[in-house]
């Protein structure tokens, strides 16, 4: 069936919009929803999309690259260094042992050695996309199981490099030098040059990330065109992918590295929230493509063989992981989650399988069967995780991640967010800081962010009126937001967004003048601070003192004045849309104030001071 580009896009988008809410409602998670949507629109069921599923999967795999970039950007380099033991140990052993077992079994089933080895390596990999997305959705990424799974997936991404080098050898001398990936610059080079190239590419990413990307981000941010920043963020990830593919490395791995280099950048939150929606859509597309690519006709023609293979394969992988988890002292409950999460075969298997077919390592039928097995194992994973969540986890009486390992905090979670770090916000920030309160600071002025960054203050560039940016700044967990933007329009935007998306946040809002204050009152803001009020009054108090008024009296007068002023403002706010009444009331207030001010007896204006006034006592004493 030939369809227009837009028609296909419509089918995919509609499927997502229909299936995801249903899946979420049923508690199935979005990954399963996407997979089901893919199955339904795929050739096996409704046939809206045909065999282009494989191509779409290739394209959508870019979502995985973006995901790794985002994971990298949320990860402090020091944290990664702490994870070196599980990455190398747990990950290395998993790949080696699973490859060995699967290779052995394949040989027992009558496959030749090279085909068995190809199968072993292919099937030892797991699906980064499905595992990380599912765990993230369940909030398990920072648990012991999540961290271990991440370590293993990271190692698998590294292991792909030598696998790609070995595969052409398995094909034998007569089939030539076609590599499983697209042609790379590395082909036909001696080993030392290849190694040098790989190292060079990594160096380029690190150095460019440090010294080139940050200044560029600054320039782009200064242009103050929002979509330009998005374009640059995308360019960044795409460039890394291109560079990595050029030297034959995994683009996901490169993006992860690029993310880590930018993890400490002040533009981190902005980059995150710019890439996030693309990642989400592409991953969704990827999952749908996986669903659509399951060949149910084939499955139905030999159900027991395929289902048996799926079950055996997942069991082998899971058992290997359980044993390794035990060695690495993961608690039982977390270990089960870890094993179940990684028991499927990853998306990279599709690439490797099609290569084995082209080079006659495996027969066409084996490849078709294995492709179905891989896709099914991926589709089953969200179901397994659901099983774990609903049945296994409750048995352990603990919903929280286990204590075998301190959960690493990937995101900063401060109780306070300061939106706008100009003259006003920075005083608030400093005051909170000396009182031991950490705040996440967002600011829209790239020059200022830059300058503060040089002073060692962590300020993130970004528009606080974007709810996704607020979310990545930890708004869901914060208690208080201090809104001190440069302009009224920005302030009102932020207030509206906070009210809509984070109603639990207490808002403290800076206002410039009385009209702003009215608008904020209309929006229901309770804590409004006119930026010049307190300073002016303090100045007035000092002037009073210089003219001979006692300090204590001056201070009390300031306090009384401010209270009266704020009360009057609230009264005026209610009637301000009635022009005539408003003007009259303002006139009255001014007259009242003048009367109060012109009265040389301060006590009349300041009635609370009567207790210190002896006049009535003197009068009474003289009557005796």
């Amino acid at each position: 069936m030939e369809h227009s580009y837009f028609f296909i896009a419509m089918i995919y988008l509609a499927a997502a919009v229909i299936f995801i809410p249903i899946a979420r409602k049923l508690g199935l998670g979005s990954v399963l929803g996407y997979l089901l949507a893919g199955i339904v629109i795929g050739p096996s069921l409704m046939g809206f999309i045909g065999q282009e599923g494989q191509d779409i999967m290739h394209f959508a795999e870019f979502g995985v690259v973006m995901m790794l970039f985002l994971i990298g950007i949320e990860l402090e380099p020091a944290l990664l260094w702490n994870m070196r033991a599980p990455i190398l140990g747990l990950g290395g052993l998993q790949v080696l042992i699973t490859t060995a077992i699967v290779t052995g079994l394949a040989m027992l089933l009558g496959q030749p050695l090279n085909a068995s080895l190809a199968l072993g390596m292919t099937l030892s990999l797991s699906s980064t996309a499905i595992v990380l997305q599912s765990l993230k959705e369940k909030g398990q990424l920072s648990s012991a199981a999540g961290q271990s799974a991440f370590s293993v997936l990271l190692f698998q991404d590294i292991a792909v490099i030598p696998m790609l080098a070995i595969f052409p050898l398995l094909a034998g001398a007569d089939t030539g030098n076609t590599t499983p990936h697209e042609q790379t610059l590395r082909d036909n080079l001696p080993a030392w040059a290849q190694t040098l190239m790989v190292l060079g590419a990594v160096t380029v990413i690190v150095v460019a990330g440090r010294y080139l990307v940050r200044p560029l981000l600054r320039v782009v941010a200064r242009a103050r065109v929002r979509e330009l920043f998005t374009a640059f963020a995308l360019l960044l990830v795409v460039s890394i992918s291109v560079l990595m593919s050029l030297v034959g490395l995994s683009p996901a791995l490169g993006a992860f590295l690029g993310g880590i280099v930018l993890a400490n950048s002040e533009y981190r939150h902005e980059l995150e929230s710019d890439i996030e929606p693309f990642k989400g859509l592409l991953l969704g597309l990827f999952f749908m493509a996986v669903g659509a690519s399951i060949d149910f006709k084939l499955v139905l023609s030999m159900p027991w063989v395929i289902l048996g293979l799926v079950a055996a394969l997942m069991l082998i992988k899971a058992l290997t992981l359980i044993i390794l988890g035990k060695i690495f002292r993961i608690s039982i409950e977390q270990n089960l989650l870890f094993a179940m999460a990684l028991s499927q075969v990853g998306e990279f298997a599709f690439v490797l399988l099609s290569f084995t077919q082209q080079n006659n390592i495996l027969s066409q039928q084996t490849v078709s069967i294995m492709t179905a097995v891989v896709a099914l194992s991926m589709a089953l994973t969200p179901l397994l995780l659901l099983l774990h969540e609903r049945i296994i986890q409750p048995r352990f009486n603990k919903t929280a991640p286990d204590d075998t390992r301190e959960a690493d905090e990937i995101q900063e979670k401060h109780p306070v967010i300061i939106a706008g770090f100009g003259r006003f916000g920075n005083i608030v920030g400093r005051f909170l800081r000396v009182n031991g309160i950490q705040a996440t600071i967002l600011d829209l002025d790239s020059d200022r962010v830059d300058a503060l960054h040089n002073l060692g203050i962590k300020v993130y560039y970004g528009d606080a009126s974007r709810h996704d940016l607020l979310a990545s700044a930890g708004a869901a967990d914060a208690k208080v937001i201090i809104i001190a933007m440069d302009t009224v329009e920005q302030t009102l935007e932020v207030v509206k967004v906070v009210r809509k998306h984070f109603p639990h946040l207490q808002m403290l809002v800076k206002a410039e003048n009385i009209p702003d204050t009215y608008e904020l009152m209309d929006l229901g803001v309770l804590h409004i601070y006119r930026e010049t009020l307190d300073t002016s009054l303090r100045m007035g108090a000092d002037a009073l003192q210089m003219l001979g008024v006692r300090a204590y009296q001056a201070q009390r007068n300031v306090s009384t004045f401010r209270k009266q002023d704020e009360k009057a403002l609230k009264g005026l706010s209610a009637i301000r849309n009635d022009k005539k009444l408003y003007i009259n009331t303002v006139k009255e207030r001014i007259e009242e104030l003048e009367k109060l001010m012109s009265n040389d007896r301060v006590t009349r204006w300041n009635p609370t001071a009567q207790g210190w006034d002896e006049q009535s006592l003197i009068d009474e004493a003289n009557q005796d």
Partner: protein
Amino acid sequence: MAKILILFAHPALEKSRVHAQLVRAIRGMQGVTLHDLYEIYPDLNIDVRHEQSLLLQHDIILFQHPFYWYSAPAMIKQWMDLVLEHGWAYGRTGNALRGKIAGSIVSTGSQEAAYHKEGWHRHPVNDFLLPFRQTAALCNMQYLDPFVVYGTHKLSHQEISEAAISYRQMLENLRDGQLKLQ
């Protein structure tokens, strides 16, 4: 020559008749430090270390204030609560004030006759100052009998001036060691 510290507390000196004159009379006296608490700490945020070092620099500590509700204005209580720290002013290691002399200078609206067993207030002023006396005792200080200006509601400007002069005289004697201590 002893050094005298006067801890002065009046929340509304601008309206005062008595204390304004008393203060004027003793301003600039040699060996006498007038410490105007409400002027220095309008927000009641007392600098404890500074107050303690002031105390250490003086031999005689006097509280001067109007008599409000048989006691002192809030500032004096705040000052005591914060400055007379345990382990510094009292307690096993609290010896900073040992051997110093304390006292009170108060003004009352009522006549002296009202501060009497059969009078309006049913107790002499000295009785009402019990918390000061005991505070001094706990800090190992000697507490003097108070200097009281009675009947301020009916005092004429002239009479207040006379009270101010005798206040000054009392301080001079105290400073020069001529006042006999009980």
